[in-house]
């Protein structure tokens, strides 16, 4: 349990005159519609369970009416769950009494709202310092912290303005600064960018990721926009009719949608912005070290049936690429491997999105080299891999393409030998 920051354990939220009496019906497996028809109670969240890890961006995605906003309000008990438990750092917050709950909200968790929820009778500074003010922090101290957070979200100079003097995007920055000022472990964001226009929304998404990179909060993020969910989520939960239908990383959901509803949902997603180099790359069968020499390089290529091979140094740092033609020519002219190696290789980082790789793949005459953070060679990408990464069904197909490629190249190698 310790490794989970938040654990949602069979949580249900029912609205109506006597919600408690309805909870057993969920355990019996009655559907939301049956319960509504029989008792007139609306089930907002139906037996939801999930675990959220410390420091991750966890996105809850669903259409309107899917219960996502109801569920996120359970995390800080703006909605008290009718049934089930919510563990934060191992403590069941549903059992909290008023003083504990107040302390929990003041210290551990903060929320950003869809329509910002700003206090329009207070200045920007007054808004951002609110959370600290109700903790009775001294004026000097809280204004200093508020000031830092206003600068963090890029609103320096607007401290004395009122919310209605700012644009929507700026107002939501205030909402974010206000939430961050409390230095919470957990940040709840209820469709924070849905009310903003698309350009501003994209900026805000990038900025959020930027801030997250620095602050490493545990973020629970609600959205109805599948592109937004897959862009910023480390993991995504998909909700429908109050139920959690699937939880997983964006890639795993794209690769194996749990049902037709999710397939339908993700149909329009731009896969090139979800899949990264590491998802389409191939681990090299053959690598040649600089000191190995040309003969070894030719042998490696023949054995693996390929027409070119990457050359690395002892620490697997990429030195370049050598083609079979160049290698054979080199042997004839008694050159060393170092002389014939072609250093004009395009490298991409493991984390690069396919979207960014496409132009490089078009320009490069060799396969793209994929490197990790330490600049070590991890794999390579052929143009067909880039293409197959964009096709919805089965990413494994790229290996077939690769096999085809190898087969055709085997022919050329044999031709050369003749």
């Amino acid at each position, binding site marked *: 349990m310790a490794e989970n920051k938040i654990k949602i354990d069979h949580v249900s939220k029912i609205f109506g005159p006597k919600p408690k009496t309805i909870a057993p019906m969920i355990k019996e497996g009655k559907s939301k519609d049956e319960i509504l028809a029989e008792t007139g109670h609306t089930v907002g969240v139906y037996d939801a369970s999930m675990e959220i890890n410390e420091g991750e961006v966890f996105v809850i995605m669903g259409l309107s009416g899917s219960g996502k906003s109801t569920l996120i*309000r359970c995390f*800080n008990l*703006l909605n008290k769950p009718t049934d089930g438990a919510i563990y934060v750092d191992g403590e069941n917050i549903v059992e909290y009494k008023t003083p504990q*709950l*107040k*302390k*929990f*909200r*003041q*210290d551990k*968790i*903060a*929320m950003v*709202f*869809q*329509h*910002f*929820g*700003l*206090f*329009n*009778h*207070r200045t920007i500074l007054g808004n951002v310092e*609110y*959370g600290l*003010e*109700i*903790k009775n922090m001294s004026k000097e101290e809280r204004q200093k912290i508020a000031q830092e957070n206003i600068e963090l979200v890029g609103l320096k100079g607007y401290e004395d303005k*009122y*919310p*209605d*003097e700012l644009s929507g995007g700026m107002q939501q920055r205030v*909402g974010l600064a*206000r939430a961050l000022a*409390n230095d919470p472990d957990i940040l*709840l964001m209820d469709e924070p960018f849905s009310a903003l226009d698309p350009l501003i929304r994209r900026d805000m998404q990038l900025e959020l990721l930027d801030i997250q990179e620095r602050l490493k909060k545990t973020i629970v993020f609600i959205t109805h926009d599948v592109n937004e969910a897959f862009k910023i989520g480390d993991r995504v939960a998909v909700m429908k009719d109050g139920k959690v239908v699937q939880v997983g990383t964006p890639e795993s959901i794209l690769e194996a949608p749990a049902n037709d509803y999710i397939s339908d949902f993700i149909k329009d997603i731009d896969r090139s912005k979800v899949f990264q180099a590491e998802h389409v790359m191939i681990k090299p069968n053959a690598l040649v070290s600089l000191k190995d020499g040309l003969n070894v390089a030719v042998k490696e290529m023949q054995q693996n049936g390929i027409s070119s091979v990457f050359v690395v140094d002892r620490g697997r740092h990429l030195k370049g690429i050598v083609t079979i033609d160049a290698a054979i020519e080199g042997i004839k002219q008694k050159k060393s491997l170092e002389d014939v190696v072609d250093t004009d290789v395009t490298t991409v980082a493991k984390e690069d999105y396919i979207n960014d790789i496409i132009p490089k793949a078009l320009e490069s005459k060799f396969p793209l080299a994929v490197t990790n953070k330490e600049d070590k060679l991890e794999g390579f990408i052929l143009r067909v891999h880039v293409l197959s990464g964009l096709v919805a069904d089965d990413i494994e197909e790229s290996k077939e393409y690769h096999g085809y490629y190898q087969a055709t190249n085997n022919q050329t190698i044999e031709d050369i030998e003749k």
Partner: protein
Amino acid sequence: MGSFPNIQSNLGDYVEMFVDFLDEGLEGLFDLIFFISSRTINGIEAFLNFLPWWLFIILIILVGWYFKSIGSGLLYGLFMFLVGTFGLWDEMMMTISIVVSAVLICLVLGIPLGVYMAFSKGFSTVMRPILDAMQTMPSFVYLIPAIFFFGLGNVSAIFATLIYALPPVIRLTELAIRGVDEEVIESAQSFGSSRWQMLMKVQLPQALPTIMAGVNQTTMMALAMVVIASMVGAQGLGEQVLISINRIDIALGFEAGISIVFLAIIIDRVTNGVADRFQKHRRAK
């Protein structure tokens, strides 16, 4: 056809008995109310009379300038000066002290009642018909118990004014507190505000523009009661109107009447100006 059968209920008698009972049983309470009200009126009146007339006019001009414009300020000053030329300056000061006292007491009672109504559905259900009755009951009717409790004079006038002018501020306070944006309430909750912090730092400030509209209405209604209240012995402009009716004195009646209109205009515009001030940063989303 049949006339109404000879069935009698003596509701009026019971009310009279109840009023008698109150008068005897709660004498201490009424004495306290009398004490507070008369102190308030006398204090305000003493302050107004302490100010020289020209300083008062300058103050009115400045207030008008601050909340509306310099033109409005000068107009309000001219109104005041005209009332002085009618020979009704002292009466106007008396009327202002009665109205201001009544409004102050209305706010002290009305805002907490309105807030409580917003929080308690049960209390709200009980209060609504009472407020309706207070607003629709002909005002002459409660002049009688007013005399009973407080005798003839300014305090009875305030009591009668209270009953008539209190409902708007209560109603609009309730409406305003209930009308605060749900997400704003949620965001205050999500930071762990206590109920008191929520009320003082979020709900009341958010509700203030609407509450100010209630204050404006209450003030105008208090002014409207000035003439009726003079029947139980309130002094001031209302008393002059009453005298002019008795004497069929058109000149005095018009002068006193137009003075009340001037006062109404000034008070209405100034309280509206204050409300606009509060409204400034609350344009709808």
